[in-house]
C-alpha cells in the first residue's frame, strides 16, 4: 500500500488551491472527523490535503499531527462514508491557501469558498488562510468611527474602524437582524466600504434572511458572502472565517477598502473546534472546550485592524449565541477577553418591546474613546454617553429598590431616574430594523432624555455643555 498515482479527479477546487503529486492510501484509522494515514513521507505539519474517494466527490483535510510515517488529518467534510482502502490522500506541500482578488466583490460561496452563485471559481493570487500575525508596531491605532445608523450603538458603544466588537446574544433574539442591519447600513467617512459576511452553521431560513437583507449591498458589488449552512459539514466551519478574513485582509491592506467582517455564529464555530479536539482525545479545559480555544479565537479576531501608512481597515463583528444566556460560557468569555468590548443583547429588554434589545450597561466599546468625540463624531458625544450610562446604572438601582418598597416609596430623584430610563429606551434606543439614524439626531435624542433629570444629577457633563444644550436651570 505504498504511494501510487491517481489521475486528478478534476473536481473544481474553487478557492482551494491544489498542487499535490503523490497519493497515499494506507488509511489506518477513521475516527470522528479524523483520518490517520500511514506510510507517508515528506508530509509537514499543518499541510493541506485532498482526500480522493472511490466513486465520490473529493474531500479536503488539514494535517493535525505527523509522527514518523503517520499523518493525522482532520477532514473538513467529515469522514462519513469513507472506507479504508477506498481513499487516496494527496498532500499539497503547503498550508491551505485561498485565491484573493477584487473578483470576490459580490460573490456568494459556500464555507470552503466554492461558488454557490453559479459563477466561476474566484481567481487571484494564493494566500495561506491562516494568515500571519500583524506586527503590533506596524498597526495604526483605530481612530475613526464606523457609523452604523443604530442609535444605541452609535451613541453608547461606537464601533471604530479596525475594531473587533462582538454581539453576544441568546437564541431567539434578533441578533441576525441587528448584524445585517449593521452590515447593510454601516459607513465610514472614506470611500470603498465593503462587507464580508461569514455564516457558520446558519439554518437555511437564516441564510435566506441574510441574503435578502443584504441584497442591496450585494447588488452594488460591496458584499462577499461565505455560507456554511447548519447541515453542511461541521468541520468546514473551521475554515469559513479564515477564508473570509484572508479575503478581507487582501481587500483592506492591498486594495485600500474599509472592510467589515461579520461572522455568525461563533458558537457553532467553537463547537466544530471542540469536536476535533474531542476526537483527538485532548485534555479539555472548561466545559469540554480545548485549552487553546482562546488562542484559536484570537487567531481570527486579531486579524482586524489598520496598518500604518496604508489605507483600508478590517473591522470584525463576530456574532455569538450564549448557551442558556450564560456570559461566563467559554465562547463569550474568551471572546470578551480578546475583543475590544461587547454588545450584549438581553431577553429582558426584548420583552419590553425594544429593538435592538441591547443591554447597554453590560455593553462596551473599548475603542470608543479614540473613535468618538471632538473632530470625530461630536464634541459632546463622550460626556453625554458617560452621563446616559451613569444615569441608567442609577435607574437600575432605583428600579430594584422600587420592586421591593414600591415605586411610591422612592425618593423624587429616584423616580426621575425611572422616568429617564423609560424616555431613553423609547426615544433613543428603540428603532426600526431598517431605519438608519444620523449621529447628530441620536445625540440630540440623548439630550432630550437627560432633560428629565434634575440638573444637579448631571455631574458627568461640564456645566457649560449642559447650559448650551438644555438652557438655563430647570
Amino acid at each position, binding site marked *: 500500500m505504498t504511494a501510487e498515482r491517481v489521475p486528478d479527479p478534476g473536481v473544481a477546487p474553487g478557492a482551494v488551491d491544489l498542487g499535490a503529486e503523490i497519493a497515499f492510501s494506507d488509511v489506518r484509522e477513521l475516527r470522528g472527523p479524523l483520518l490517520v494515514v500511514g506510510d507517508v513521507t*515528506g508530509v*509537514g*505539519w*499543518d*499541510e493541506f490535503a485532498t482526500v480522493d474517494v472511490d466513486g465520490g466527490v473529493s474531500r479536503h483535510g488539514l494535517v*493535525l499531527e*505527523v*509522527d*514518523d*510515517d503517520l499523518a493525522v488529518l482532520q477532514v473538513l467534510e467529515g469522514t462519513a462514508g469513507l472506507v479504508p482502502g477506498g481513499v487516496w490522500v494527496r498532500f499539497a506541500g*503547503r*498550508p491551505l491557501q485561498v485565491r484573493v482578488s477584487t473578483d470576490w466583490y459580490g460573490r456568494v460561496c459556500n464555507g470552503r469558498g466554492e461558488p454557490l452563485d453559479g459563477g466561476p471559481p474566484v481567481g487571484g493570487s494564493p494566500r495561506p488562510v491562516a*494568515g*500571519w*500575525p*500583524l*506586527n*503590533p*508596531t*506596524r*498597526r495604526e*491605532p*483605530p481612530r475613526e468611527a464606523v457609523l452604523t445608523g443604530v442609535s444605541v450603538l452609535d451613541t453608547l458603544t461606537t464601533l471604530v474602524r479596525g*475594531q473587533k466588537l462582538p454581539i453576544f446574544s441568546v437564541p431567539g433574539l434578533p441578533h441576525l437582524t441587528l448584524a445585517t442591519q449593521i452590515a447593510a447600513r454601516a459607513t465610514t467617512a472614506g470611500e470603498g466600504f465593503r462587507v464580508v459576511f461569514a455564516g457558520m452553521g446558519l439554518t437555511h431560513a437564516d441564510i435566506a434572511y441574510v441574503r435578502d437583507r443584504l441584497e442591496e449591498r450585494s447588488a452594488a458589488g460591496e458584499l462577499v458572502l461565505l455560507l456554511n449552512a447548519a447541515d453542511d459539514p461541521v468541520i468546514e466551519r473551521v475554515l469559513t472565517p479564515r477564508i473570509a478574513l484572508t479575503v478581507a485582509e487582501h481587500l483592506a491592506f492591498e486594495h485600500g477598502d474599509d472592510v467589515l467582517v461579520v461572522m455568525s455564529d461563533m458558537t457553532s464555530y467553537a463547537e466544530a473546534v471542540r469536536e476535533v479536539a474531542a476526537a483527538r482525545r*485532548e*485534555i*479539555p479545559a472548561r466545559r469540554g472546550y480545548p*485549552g*487553546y480555544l*482562546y488562542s484559536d479565537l*484570537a*487567531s481570527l479576531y*486579531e486579524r*482586524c485592524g489598520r*496598518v500604518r501608512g496604508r489605507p483600508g481597515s478590517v473591522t470584525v463583528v463576530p456574532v455569538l449565541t450564549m448557551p442558556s444566556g450564560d*456570559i*461566563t*460560557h*467559554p465562547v463569550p*468569555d*474568551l471572546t470578551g*477577553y*480578546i475583543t475590544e468590548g461587547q454588545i450584549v443583547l438581553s431577553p429582558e429588554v426584548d420583552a419590553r418591546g425594544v429593538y435592538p434589545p441591547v443591554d447597554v*450597561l453590560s455593553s*462596551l466599546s473599548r*475603542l470608543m*474613546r479614540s473613535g468618538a468625540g471632538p473632530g470625530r463624531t461630536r464634541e459632546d458625544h*463622550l460626556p453625554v454617553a*458617560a452621563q446616559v*450610562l*451613569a444615569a441608567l*446604572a442609577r435607574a437600575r438601582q432605583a428600579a430594584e*429598590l422600587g420592586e*421591593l*418598597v414600591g415605586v411610591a*416609596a422612592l*425618593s423624587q430623584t429616584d423616580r426621575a431616574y425611572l422616568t429617564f430610563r423609560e424616555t431613553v429606551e423609547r426615544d433613543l434606543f428603540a428603532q426600526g430594523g431598517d431605519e438608519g439614524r444620523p449621529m447628530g439626531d441620536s445625540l440630540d435624542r440623548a439630550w432630550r432624555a437627560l432633560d428629565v433629570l434634575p440638573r*444637579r444629577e*448631571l*455631574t458627568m457633563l461640564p456645566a457649560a455643555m449642559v447650559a448650551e444644550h438644555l438652557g438655563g436651570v430647570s
Partner: protein
Amino acid sequence: MELTGGRVRRVNGPLVEVENLGDVAMSEVVRLGPERIAAEVVGLAGARATLQAYEYTGGLRPGDRAEATGDRLAGLFGPGLLGQAFDGLLRPLSGAPVWLTPHREVDAAARAWHFEPAVALGDQVEPGDLLGTVPQTGPVEHRLVAPVRGPVTWLADGSLGATDPAVRVGDIPVPLAHRWPIRVPRRFRERLSDVVPLHTGQRVLDLLYPIARGTAAAVPGGFGTGKTLLLQQIAKWSEADVVVYVGCGERGNEMAEVLDELAQVPDERTGGRLVDRTVIIANTSNMPMMAREASIHSGIAVAEYFRDMGYDAVVIADSTSRWAEALREFANRTGDLPAEEGYPATLASQLAAFYERAGRVVTLGGRTASTTVIGAVSPPGGDMTEPVTTATQRFIRSLWLLDRELAYARHYPAVTWAGSFARDADAVGLWHAARGDPGWRARRATATALLAEADRLASLAEVIGTASLPAHERVVLLAGQLLRDAVLQQNALVANDASCSVAKGAALLTTVLDVVETCQRLVARGVAATTVEEADLADLVRVREEVGPDDADGVLRRREEVLARLEALT
C-alpha cells in the same frame, strides 16, 4: 555551533519530538528544519528529546534536521532597549516587517554607540561596578557595569557596535550588549526589607491599596473591568525609572495604542517622553503561543538588567493568565497529567518563580534598586476561584481586585474595596508619617471603614428603603457615594485627573472626610437627612477634574467653599 545528527520525528503544533540530538541538555535551544526555528528542550528520554517550538511549525516534517546550539534561551541586553518594542523572544519588532513570518534575522550590531568610560586603565573593578555610560540613549542614563572582578586592561575609543568590546577586565572583553538567559535571575548582593511605596498616580491604589517598591501586585478582573486601562495608567504615571510593559497574549490594537500614547506623553520627571523610559514586549494573542510563555521571563529579565544599573524598574504583565494558558496548552500536548482545570501541577511553582523575581535589593555594585512586578490575571468567567487567580494570591503583596459591578456603573478604576488588600499598608503609613503626613493611616482606615459600612447599609436599604434608616446612617450612605465619586474614581481621559500627586490625593480624601464629618454634625444638630442628601455637591465631585494633577491647594479651596455652604444648611 556543533552539528549533531538530530532529526525531527513528530510534530504536533508547538510540540516537536526529535531523535539523536546527542548530548543535549534540558532547556537548551535547538534549531529545527530549513527555517531553523527556535525550540527549547523540555524533556529527554533515551535518544528522544521533547521540544517546545517558539514559532509556527507549519511545514516541518519528520526527517527534517535538528541542531542543538549549546545555548539556553537568551536575549540580547544592551543599549537600544528603551523606547522600542520586542517580541516574546526579545527580537526587535520596531523595524520588522508588517507580517511576522518565522524567519527573522536580528541584526544587533547595526547601530553604533558611543561609550564614555567611568574607569581608567589599571583600575581594579568588582562585579557590579560602573564601567561607563552610553550617552544619547535618552533620559535614562545607560550604564555598563562590570560582570567580573579584575583590573581594567583596555578601553574602547570612539564609536562601537553593541557587541564589540567596550572594556577589557583582565582578559575578559565586556561589550555594551551581552546575551543573558531570560529564565535565570541576575545576582544581587542582598534583599532589602524596608518598605518604600511606589507612587502609581492612581488614587485608589495610593490611598487605599499601596504597593511597595520591589514587591508584587496582581490585578484580577473579568473582561470589561478596565484591567488593561488601569495597567496602562500605571505604566504612564507610576514613579518608576524604567517600565517594562509585557503584552502577553493580549490585543494588537492595544499594543499599538500603548506605543502611540507613550510616544506622545511627555515625562515631567525627566523632560523626555514616557516612551523613552519604557520597553515594550508585545506577544499578542495571535503570535506564536510558546513565545508568549517566554515573554514574561523576557520582561522580567529586562527589568533586572536595568535594576542592576541602579534603577527602580516596574514590570507590568498583561496577562499572566494567557501565560498560564500557554503552559497548559503545552503540558496537554506532552500528555502531562493535569491538576486543576487542565493546568499542569507545576502551575503554582512556576507562578512563584516569576513573582519572586520581584525585589528591592542592593545590587552587586552597591546601588539600591528594585524590580516591582504587577501582573494582570484574567479569570475565565470572572471566576475568582480558578487556579491561576488563587495560586497568584499567595505570592503577591497587593491585590487589586476589579469588580464587574463597578465597571458596569462606569466606576473606573474598578478596584473594589471588598476583597482587595495591601499587606504593606501599615508600613507605607509609617513611611508617610516619617515624611510629614502622620494622618495617612487614619484616613485610610476611616475611608475603608466608611466604604464597607456604606455597602452594608446599601444592602439593608434595598430591603427596608433608605427612608427607614436613621439620619446618621443615611450620611454614611452619602459618604460612600462621595468617596467613590470624588476620590476613588479617576478619569483617565482628563489630563487633570489621569494622574494624581500624593498631595492632591491626600487633599481630596481629607476634604471628603471633612464633608462627611460636617454632614454628621448637621444631622446631629437636627437638619433633615433629606436636606443633606439633596445638597448640591457636584462641585466637590468635579474638583478632581477641575484642578491640576498636583494642585492640592485648589482642592482645599474647594473644601472651604463646600464646607461653608453645608454649614449654612438648616
